[in-house]
């Protein structure tokens, strides 16, 4: 490709200066080139956008599936919560744990420090009261694990007993070995099963 030279015009009154003129041949090629490149560019951008959008569609489909999965999990958990908090399950669990409702309320009036009502023990043999559930519920999907609660209670009792035994042992030890410092030593080692400090005067 050849280009046109620079034509200089020199006047007598001032120094000559190069003046550029359009290169007509170059323009003829450049404009279509720019158009073609532009079109190609636009196509490329469009293609990329298309790819991204398509990718987004797949992501959207995945997220929707995930949402559905979470919805299913939520339903399963809701059904479990419904069952565990239902009156039927609570009544059975309470009865299983030996709980009895007391229908003799006693109120304490803080203002005048009065006791309203007569405290009496709960009537376990109230003929009109029912502890066992009698109201059907076929929507129950899970129930309170009484075995686990009882096992935990038993474990807590055993721990408390063991702690008490340890405490007595420590007191005995202290009594025999270090009578002079028994008060201090006993206070340091005696703990109840609940993690609270037991009375050092045991």
């Amino acid at each position: 490709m050849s280009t046109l030279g620079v034509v200089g015009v020199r006047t007598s009154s001032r120094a000559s200066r190069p003046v550029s003129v359009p290169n007509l041949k170059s323009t003829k090629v450049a404009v279509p080139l720019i158009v073609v490149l532009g079109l190609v560019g636009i196509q490329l951008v469009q293609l990329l956008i298309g790819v991204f959008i398509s990718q987004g569609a797949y992501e959207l489909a995945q997220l929707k599936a995930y949402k559905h999965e979470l919805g299913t999990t939520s339903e399963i958990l809701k059904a479990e919560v419904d069952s565990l908090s239902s009156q039927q399950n609570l009544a059975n669990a309470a009865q299983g744990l030996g709980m009895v409702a007391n229908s003799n309320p006693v109120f304490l009036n803080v203002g005048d420090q009065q006791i309203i009502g007569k405290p009496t023990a709960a009537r376990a043999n109230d003929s009109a009261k029912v502890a066992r559930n009698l109201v059907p519920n076929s929507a129950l999907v899970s129930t309170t694990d009484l075995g686990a609660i009882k096992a935990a209670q038993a474990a807590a009792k055993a721990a408390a007993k063991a702690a008490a035994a340890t405490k007595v042992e420590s007191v005995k030890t202290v009594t025999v070995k270090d009578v002079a410092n028994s008060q201090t030593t006993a206070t340091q080692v005696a703990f109840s099963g609940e993690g609270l400090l037991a009375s050092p005067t045991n």
Partner: protein
Amino acid sequence: MSYMQPGNPAKRLRLFMAVVMVVVLAFTWKLVEFQVVRAAEINKISKEKRSVTRTLPALRGSIEDSDGNVLARSVYRYDINAAPINVKPIMRSVSGASVEISVDQQATELAAILDMTKEEVMTKIAGTSNYANLAKNVDSSVYSKLKDLGIPWIYFDQKLARVYPSGAVAGNLLGFVGVDGEPLAGIERQYNSCLAGVDGQETFERGATDGIRIPNSAVIAQKARNGSDVVLTIDSDLQYYAQQVLTNTVSKLRADWASAVVVEVKTGNILAAAEAPSVDPNATGKSNAADRGSRIFQASIEPGSTMKTVTAATVIDQGEATPESKIKAPYRFHLPWGQDITDSHFHETQKLTLTGVLRDSSNTGIIQFGARVDTKTRFDYLKKFGVGEKTDVRFEGETAGLLSNWKDWDKMTDKTSMFGQGIAVTPIQAAFFYQAIANGGVRLQPRLIEGCRDANGNVVATPVKPGVQTVSAASARSTIDMLEKVVEEGGIGRTADVPGYRVAGKSGTAQIKDGAGYGTRYAISFIGMAPAEDPQYVVAVTVYKPRTVSNSIGATPPFRSIMEQVLLNYRVPPATTKSKKIDTEW
């Protein structure tokens, strides 16, 4: 020997150009045909192949109790289907290794989850069809386990269903919906316009190979509008408690059924409307058809002696008697036309006051007091107390009871209506006689529905109508004072006493029509209010046709038990005052 003649290049060129032109014209013609002439048709076919129209299901609203505990809500359920034609062994990744799972093994896994035998599953998936149903309406837990198996020839049809988390608690009120989601009974049907949503519809295009939605192609024709929630006045814990007590009562007394209504006196709100036998809306098939409705609104029975309270209030309100007005009450009262009215048990003639008549539930006594007010006036009072008219609850199948025009009453009905025979009321009507007395004589309309709550939390409340003044406030107070004596001194009434509280109430033992006459079994009841010094709650218990007792002694234990729970539940402090001193005998 011949030589190829030099051709005519121009001619060949023209020929070639002609052929090209024909081809171009043919393509152009097809192009025009596809792009212009048949463009719409082809576009339509193409779009039909890609586009999918899907219903956007609207969720049915929940039914909640007054504390927001959900008693009915919508959940997803799944039909489990298989394509037997595609049944084959599958590969599954187990501890990183690909293991083949035989059809037999897959059937075993399915059977364990679906609570079926392997043989049953194998029978269903045998053959070469494209469809076989394995199970219907399984819950999300089962669906999730099945999905985790990754069996490609199993597919799931999701659908909406209804679940009642508290089972039979308020089941008789809630009603139920059919398998197609159509409400069939109770509040579900009565308030369907509030609960039901409007399904939407969505159309979009999807790829032919992967089925993925083509971006920006979704056209939502109509958005789904979820249903609103119905909020009840019922306290579900109290309702459960009352149902427990009634179920126990029905079992012990070997009764046909029993009901209990707990009413908040000042508002008319129904806090519990319990029945036994009850229905679990999750499994309606397990209960008798007769037990699936609400007898509290649908059963009309002669109330018996609980009606004496209305007669006594009427007489006092008309100024014809006071609580200490005196009469002689014989065991048998001879009527001028030859018929007799007797008391329920033999006794010597007693000298009773009006209060004593109520205490002893004397028929012969109450007809003497009632006769002091003319028939029309007594009829008008019955109307004011709501006898013979449906309540505003307008429960499905609610009955108005029976109160014929006083002009049509025969001489006997004129008398028997004073002690609750010859007229019929529903348990809810009977409860509101006592609500009126407890509320200074103002009978309110029962409210079972707090309102309809939309998605934004706006509640369209059930309107509260002004009450009807049945008797004056003073007459109502006098009636309460008399009813306290029933509980303090009455042979049966005493068994309704709640220790520590002042309770006022009345028992009823009503004969039940059996053909032309009355049968040998009764409808027993006890309706009372507490605390009597300022009544807040009314409890009305009815036990229908008990076999082990024949008087209202069978209705007081459930009354007392429910009233105790009500007072405890709403933290009503025990009484610090005593009842008014009124003579019952003279």
